[in-house]
């Protein structure tokens, strides 16, 4: 690789990098082949006298080509390949006088012509050395002419023709590169959008995990404290400390695997009144990835706690085993059971801790229960879904996506094809109107009849018009048009062959010989290569057959025809091969892009999860963490009513937080109900009334609106009234608590658009939070 060392990261612009690599490698091979074939043909047609000198000059040129091929694999400083390339054209030019004759002139012209074109590909990323090589080539060509026939003016028209071809080659590369860059950009934009989606999905999954954890730890503990119905609080400090540990641990970065059997052996059985005797049948070891392992463990822990609270029995059976490649865990009790469908959506133990958690890690959990028939909870995690990855992080399981790669590849192929067709169309236009038209007018007298050749020329121009009306807009030719046009090209080929005296065929007057192939190439670029090959074979075959049959050529005339064929039709075929090569290589570009994408996605997910975790923990440090600290290290007593009230408020806030994720039509009402439910469980009678048509309220505003309700309900002992009023301009959430504890304090809202007003009268406290959905200037025209 020549210019790759300082290039961008692997995977950036994969299409362009692949294009450059392909044209570079291919350019060297094409040129080497052309030098070899044309050189041998030149030697065949050479004057015998000087052959050893010519061989002495051409052999180093062949060797330089071979060295250059070897350098494709072993990069060297740029000067080395440049010197080799310059040597090839210079030696070829110098060999012209040694070979002598018209054949030598053609050979040099063909080799230099092809070499300076391929230099534009070999040195595609470095236009200056490429241009310098082109100039060297042209100079060698002129030098050859001058040395071969001193005193004669060099053939400037050939020099000009080669210069035009050099420019066309560069233009073709730039056109294709532009399309490939467009494909790269489109793929990168799509990838960025998908990356955001993947990151968002990972964050949601992590949020679910976090909420499940919060539900099982702090929320459960605080709710129990707020109800205050325990006599023996000795279980509380260790549990509060454990909750704190769980909340502060960063989520989602566990790697490696765990033994589920070992984890299940330490499922807490509860203490005192909530003790459950577990009869275990665990057939370990059950080694599995830690994510699903922990999900099952935490789910089992929650389910055991449920047995203690709801089943009315003190015993449960816990079994764990493998079934094929799956790990299965079952917890069953013979308690009073329940209707799984009748569990309200606000009761989150089953849905979030057991089922939601398993879904998040790609497993499943089912609950079978009916009143009186006990409950069976079954976790199942299938090993097939576990594909170990080199990286970590929850998002890693989301990539790669084969269909995404395929889409990238398709896009790349389409763009390359389109670019190649545009480039060939340009080559046709320039060749026909800058080179062929001169030949046509210059040799008018040779054609029999001349009008046939002129008609052929006009028809080829018409073919270009057909192409130009379709291709630039990205449309392909309709199949009917395409095949009729290809057939007409063969007719043009025959016309031009039979209206030119055979001795001139493939020579300078045969303007159509080198041109028709380009027209066919842009018509046939997107179909199988053998069709284009067949076309060229028919076209070239016809000319060669006519030459052989009617002109009875000499050996050196045949060699000259061969050189002409190689330098035009061979070159066209090579271009078609190049397009095919690149299209075949497109999946590699897609894979590189996908790998780069995966890496980036993983980095972003990691970064976001860390930040989210810090943010969530920071939110807890103001409220929940001090409470758990106090309870855990016994500076706060659950016997203190004030402490229990604070616990109730925090539990209600968490319940509201859990409700945020529910997909409901009126999230504000749903979250209010979550808070109300906590108060009702404590024995407060809460009335709820709503007026007006509900509207959209952003989640952070909902938090502010509902918080006073959580606080007042948490301090109310008997009854409360909660109302929501939607007016045209605002939403007003109000709570009136009768018989409130003195310690009640509602803070001001953090959001300036939410105003909180609190009025106290006797034991009653009335708090109202309102949010104006319109901006002040809209509602206040002043």
């Amino acid at each position, binding site marked *: 690789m020549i210019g790759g060392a300082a290039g961008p990261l692997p995977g950036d612009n994969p299409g362009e990098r692949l294009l450059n690599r392909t044209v570079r490698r291919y350019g060297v091979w094409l040129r080497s082949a052309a030098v070899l074939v044309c050189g041998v043909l030149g030697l065949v047609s050479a004057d015998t006298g000087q052959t050893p000198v010519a061989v002495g000059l051409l052999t180093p040129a062949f060797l330089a080509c071979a060295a250059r091929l070897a350098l494709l694999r072993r990069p060297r400083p740029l000067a080395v390949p440049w010197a080799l390339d310059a040597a090839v054209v210079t030696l070829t030019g110098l060999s012209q006088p040694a070979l002598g004759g018209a054949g030598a002139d053609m050979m040099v012209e063909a080799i230099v012509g092809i070499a300076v074109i391929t230099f534009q590909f070999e040195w595609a990323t470095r236009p200056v050395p490429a241009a310098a090589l082109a100039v060297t080539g042209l100079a060698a060509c002129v030098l050859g002419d001058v040395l071969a026939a001193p005193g004669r003016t060099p053939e400037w028209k050939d020099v000009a023709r080669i210069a035009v071809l050099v420019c066309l080659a560069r233009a073709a590369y730039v056109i294709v590169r532009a399309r490939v860059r467009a494909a790269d950009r489109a793929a990168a934009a799509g990838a960025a959008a998908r990356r955001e989606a993947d990151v968002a999905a990972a964050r949601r999954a992590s949020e679910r995990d976090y909420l499940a954890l919060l539900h099982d730890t702090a929320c459960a503990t605080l709710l129990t404290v707020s109800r205050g119905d325990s006599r023996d609080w000795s279980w509380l400090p260790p549990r509060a400390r454990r909750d704190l540990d769980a909340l502060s641990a960063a989520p989602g970065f566990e790697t490696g695997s765990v033994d589920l059997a070992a984890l299940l052996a330490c499922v807490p059985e509860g203490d005192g009144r909530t003790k459950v005797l577990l009869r275990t049948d665990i057939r370990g070891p059950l080694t599995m990835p830690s994510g699903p392992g922990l999900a099952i463990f935490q789910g089992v822990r929650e389910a055991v706690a449920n047995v203690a609270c709801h089943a009315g029995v003190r015993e449960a059976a816990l079994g764990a085993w493998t079934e094929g490649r799956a790990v299965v865990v079952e917890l069953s009790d013979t308690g009073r059971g329940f209707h799984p469908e009748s569990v309200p959506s606000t009761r989150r133990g089953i849905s979030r801790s057991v089922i939601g958690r398993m879904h998040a890690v790609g497993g499943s959990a089912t609950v079978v229960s009916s009143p009186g028939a006990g409950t069976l909870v079954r976790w199942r995690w299938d090993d097939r879904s576990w594909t170990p990855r080199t990286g970590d992080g929850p998002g890693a399981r989301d990539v790669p996506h084969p269909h995404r790669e395929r889409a990238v590849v398709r896009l790349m192929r389409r763009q390359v094809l389109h670019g190649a067709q545009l480039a060939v169309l340009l080559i046709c236009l320039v060749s026909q109107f800058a080179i062929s038209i001169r030949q046509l007018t210059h040799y008018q007298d040779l054609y029999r009849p001349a009008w046939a050749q002129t008609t052929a020329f006009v028809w080829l121009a018409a073919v270009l018009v057909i192409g130009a009306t379709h291709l630039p807009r990205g449309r392909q030719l309709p199949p009917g048009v395409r095949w009729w046009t290809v057939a007409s090209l063969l007719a043009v080929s025959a016309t031009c062959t039979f209206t030119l005296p055979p001795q001139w065929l493939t020579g300078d007057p045969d303007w159509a010989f080198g041109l028709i192939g380009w027209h066919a190439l842009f018509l046939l670029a997107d179909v199988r290569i053998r069709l284009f090959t067949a076309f060229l074979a028919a076209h070239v075959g016809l000319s060669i057959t006519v030459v052989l049959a009617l002109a009875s050529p000499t050996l050196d005339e045949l060699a000259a025809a061969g050189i002409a064929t190689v330098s035009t039709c061979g070159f066209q075929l090579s271009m078609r091969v190049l397009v095919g090569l690149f299209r075949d290589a497109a999946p590699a570009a897609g894979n590189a892009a996908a790998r780069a994408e995966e890496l980036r996605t993983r980095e972003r997910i990691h970064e976001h999860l860390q930040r989210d975790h810090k943010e969530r923990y920071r939110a807890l440090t103001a409220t929940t963490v001090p409470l758990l600290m106090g309870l855990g290290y016994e500076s706060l007593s659950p016997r203190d009513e004030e402490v229990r009230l604070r616990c109730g408020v925090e539990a209600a806030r968490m319940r509201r937080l859990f409700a945020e994720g529910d997909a409901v039509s009126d999230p504000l009402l749903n979250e209010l109900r979550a808070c109300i439910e906590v108060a009702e469980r404590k024995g407060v009678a809460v009335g709820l009334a709503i*007026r007006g048509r509900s509207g959209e309220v952003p989640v952070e505003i909902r938090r502010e609106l509902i918080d006073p309700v959580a606080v007042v309900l948490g301090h109310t002992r008997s009854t409360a*009234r909660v109302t929501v*009023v*939607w007016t045209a301009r605002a939403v007003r959430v109000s709570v*009136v608590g009768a018989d409130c504890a003195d310690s009640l304090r509602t803070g001001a809202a953090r959001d300036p658009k939410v105003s909180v007003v609190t009025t106290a009268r006797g034991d009653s406290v*009335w708090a*109202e939070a309102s949010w104006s959905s319109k901006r002040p200037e809209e509602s206040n025209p002043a």
Partner: protein
Amino acid sequence: MSNDAPVTVVVIDDHPAILSGVEMWYATSSRPITVVAAGGSVKDAWTEPGLSADVVVLDLQLAEGGPVFGSLRKLVDAGRPVVVYSMRDDEKTALTCLNLGAATFLTKAEGREHLVDATLAAADNLPYMPPALAGALGASARADSPRLSAQEENVLIEWFQSESKELVAQRLGISVRTVNSYLDRVRIKYANVGRPARTKASLVARAVQDGLIDVDDL
């Protein structure tokens, strides 16, 4: 009708428990209120002794059918003061009843606090605004609603929220009397829009006569 004259009532409700509750609340009134007839069909309001009752207390939901808006309209057209007393707690029903000419709209949850006063107010052609109705009027976005001042809307909503005129007065720094006058004014504004009805006209007339509202306000 003087302010301490006895009031007679016909209660149309198909639930016997409601009836006994209503009679119990009426018994606590310092001004005598007598339920002269009761039944689960509107017919009871059109036959003696229900026909001559001063006030009709009407449950909107009778037997299996939908809300009996048609019966309400007929009673209002006959000039009967009707207190709608309903399980329904949505503002659309409340506004419809008011537009048809009901004296007031009470939800069943408000019966204990407000039925006695609402009945007496209806008997005297005086406005009465229970909280549930106030909430409905305060949040109403209907095009045919009368224009309310910001303070009127505020008082309506806060009365709905707190169910305590003292709390509203305290928060707004006004007297309970002023709170009442805001509520009355809104009620009169509503009586003055929509479908014309004799009950509405007498409500407005009485309000102007008592100086509750200025003729210019309408």
